[in-house]
């Protein structure tokens, strides 16, 4: 399957965190560099996060979107093509991890947009643990993932209240049961977001 994607490569990053996080980078059509962080947890659970390198010191780096004026200024009507290529690139990285670790399960969290994490606009969906329910990114990732991950190989454990989708690898279903996965998300992954 040939995906229309950006070329990516693995980078070293901070050696202290080398065991916990793997880093990849790629450059998009807007000439921005993306950093992809792959966090590894117990039970071969991997959490995938990415952001634009220019935003790396921002506390909102996972939330920031391109402004419309910026895209138009570069001669693009929308950022849709870029977005699909970014998702395809992330998917290719996920496939690379799956080839290395056959038991790998993946967690995707749809980070809220800046407007979605603003209590004045979206207070109804913001939880006390700072997760945001049913974010736009979560809904899009959901649709995208359904296209590529066969439900026979992966169980879709879904939490719209925290905008998290866990693809549980069925080869690892004895160790990572639904209950274990739920507790793990609540007790370990969410507090470390």
């Amino acid at each position: 399957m040939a995906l229309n994607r950006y070329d990516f490569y693995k980078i070293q990053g901070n050696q202290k965190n080398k065991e916990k996080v793997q880093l990849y980078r790629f450059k998009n059509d807007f000439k921005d560099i993306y950093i992809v962080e792959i966090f590894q947890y117990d039970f071969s659970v991997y959490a995938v996060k990415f952001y634009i390198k220019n935003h790396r010191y921002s506390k909102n780096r996972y939330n920031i979107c391109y402004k419309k004026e910026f895209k138009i200024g570069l001669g693009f009507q929308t950022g849709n093509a870029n977005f699909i290529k970014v998702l395809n690139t992330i998917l290719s990285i996920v496939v690379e991890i799956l080839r290395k670790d056959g038991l790998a399960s993946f967690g995707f969290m749809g980070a809220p947009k800046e407007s979605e994490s603003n209590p004045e606009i979206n207070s109804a969906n913001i939880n006390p643990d700072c997760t945001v329910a049913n974010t736009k990114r979560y809904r899009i990732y959901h649709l995208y993932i359904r296209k590529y991950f066969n439900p026979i190989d992966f169980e879709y454990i879904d939490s719209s209240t925290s905008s998290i989708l866990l693809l549980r690898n069925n080869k690892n279903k004895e160790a990572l049961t639904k209950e274990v996965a739920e507790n793990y998300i609540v007790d370990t992954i969410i507090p470390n977001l």
Partner: protein
Amino acid sequence: MIKNKTIMKFSKLHFKKAMRASKAVKTNGLTSQPSSVKHEFRVISADEINNNRSNAYQYLVL
């Protein structure tokens, strides 16, 4: 004057260290706190995935 310079140097160094630390530590920018939020989880069945599909599947061959 010397004292002020020393303080400035120290604060610059401290700032740099803090910046480096912020590079190393992963955060989502959200200061999540343990709380009694009850998140709902459900397993989405294969039928539901197939019925609500918006576009043709291209399942990964692993």
